[in-house]
């Protein structure tokens, strides 16, 4: 039987209350929402927080998906299943549907949250690549107020994010632009597994030319889950097969996959190129 070590348990009744609790308990406290990453880690003693601050009661504040002005706002407490079911999100950005359908399984998706996935900072996490491709912004609240951090500066390293110990990720904001298509391609060993490799692509095309490109990669050691060299190559070119294949090659050259039980490094690099190409092709077809 796997049981976590003892900890203090607190239930937050508002965002400021959660932040006050974080301040009171200090850096050894952890926010818990879905808990589907944190609780297994606590059972294995890979994590041993002294206090858990439960934010599941904050759905009113943090559980919404809505278009606000020219941005799509996704609350940190939105469950994976809710994002998958949100026509608002998936009609604008089919990349969410592609990715959420292959994150864990339907039962885990009922509980796990968007914000929790990003804050976990797992190097193989799917949504990190999705939001990187979307050039999203993370909204973080702390005792001093709210700050906005580009998602590309959010992940500092494995399991490390820009969220300080006394802060809470409250929302993700994604720019909405006409003429945009998006897609996510993942190879996994079996249903619900972490990716062997995966790529997200977001393209904006105006007058037959790519004006903005977002390429996100996960599980292949891409810094910040992004492929800026591939994006630079794409901008200014027509959205065609040649450009997409070239972008895939460039993305693969600039990542650093490691061999593990999911496959050798050269196979993962091959996947990075091919999945980038496929995601770009599908994204272009959805504009």
């Amino acid at each position, binding site marked *: *039987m*796997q*049981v*976590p*070590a*003892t*900890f*203090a*348990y607190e239930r937050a009744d508002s965002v400021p209350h959660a932040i006050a609790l974080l301040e009171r308990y200090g850096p050894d406290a952890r926010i818990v929402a879905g*808990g*589907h990453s944190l*609780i*297994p880690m606590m*059972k294995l003693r890979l994590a041993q927080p002294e206090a*858990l601050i*439960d934010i*599941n009661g904050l759905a009113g504040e943090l559980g919404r998906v809505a278009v606000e002005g020219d941005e799509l706002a996704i609350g940190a407490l939105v469950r994976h*299943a809710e994002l998958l079911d949100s026509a608002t999100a998936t009609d604008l950005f089919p990349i969410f549907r592609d990715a959420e359908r292959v994150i*864990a*399984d*339907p*039962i*885990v998706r*009922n*509980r796990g949250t968007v914000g929790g996935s990003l804050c976990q900072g797992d190097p193989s996490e799917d949504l990190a690549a999705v939001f990187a491709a979307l050039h999203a912004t993370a909204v973080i609240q702390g005792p001093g107020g709210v700050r906005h951090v580009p998602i590309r500066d959010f992940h500092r390293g494995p399991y490390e994010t820009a969220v300080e110990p006394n802060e809470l990720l409250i929302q993700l904001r994604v720019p909405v632009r006409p003429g945009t298509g998006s897609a996510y391609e993942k190879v996994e060993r079996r*249903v*619900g597994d972490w990716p062997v490799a995966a790529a997200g692509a977001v393209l904006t095309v105006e007058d037959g030319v790519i004006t903005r490109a977002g390429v996100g990669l996960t599980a292949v050691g891409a810094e910040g889950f992004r492929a800026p060299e591939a994006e630079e190559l794409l901008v200014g070119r027509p959205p065609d097969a040649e450009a997409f294949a070239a972008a895939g090659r460039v993305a693969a050259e600039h990542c650093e996959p490691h061999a593990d039980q999911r496959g050798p490094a050269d196979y993962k690099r091959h996947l990075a190129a091919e999945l980038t190409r496929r995601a770009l092709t599908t994204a272009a077809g959805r504009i």
Partner: protein
Amino acid sequence: MRVTVTVNGQPHTREVEPRLLLVHFLRDELGLTGTHWGCDTSNCGVCTVRLDGVPVKSCTVLAVMADGHEVTTVEGLERDGELDTVQKGFVECHGLQCGFCTPGMLLTARWLLDRDPDPDETRIREAISGQLCRCTGYENIVRSIRWAAASEQEARS
């Protein structure tokens, strides 16, 4: 910590440690051993229960998180001595083998049919993809769920 969890319509109050998992609360505190306990890592799905109507893996939910909420376990599926249609389907189509995954399968099947009364095979397989059957009896499980859907469709018409 004092918690009150409504399980299958009955409120239960207990003093629990925050680290007690919902699966152990149901099995050890309430004696509801229909909820099974398997891989302990949110993978196999045998511990699935419904929390406020939504299926969750109870080996990854703390009992304190269920305080003030409603839980349905497999024991809560039958009504007044009458089995739920999905339970009948498992009997009719041999969806039960060793029975270990069955409670989770039943609860997920009930949830699926509540949301989609006429799911095709792909949708059924997708819905139960978070539950592992150690007998690999998926064919008959899928048939059982189809049987339940058809049976409920017929009852409605």
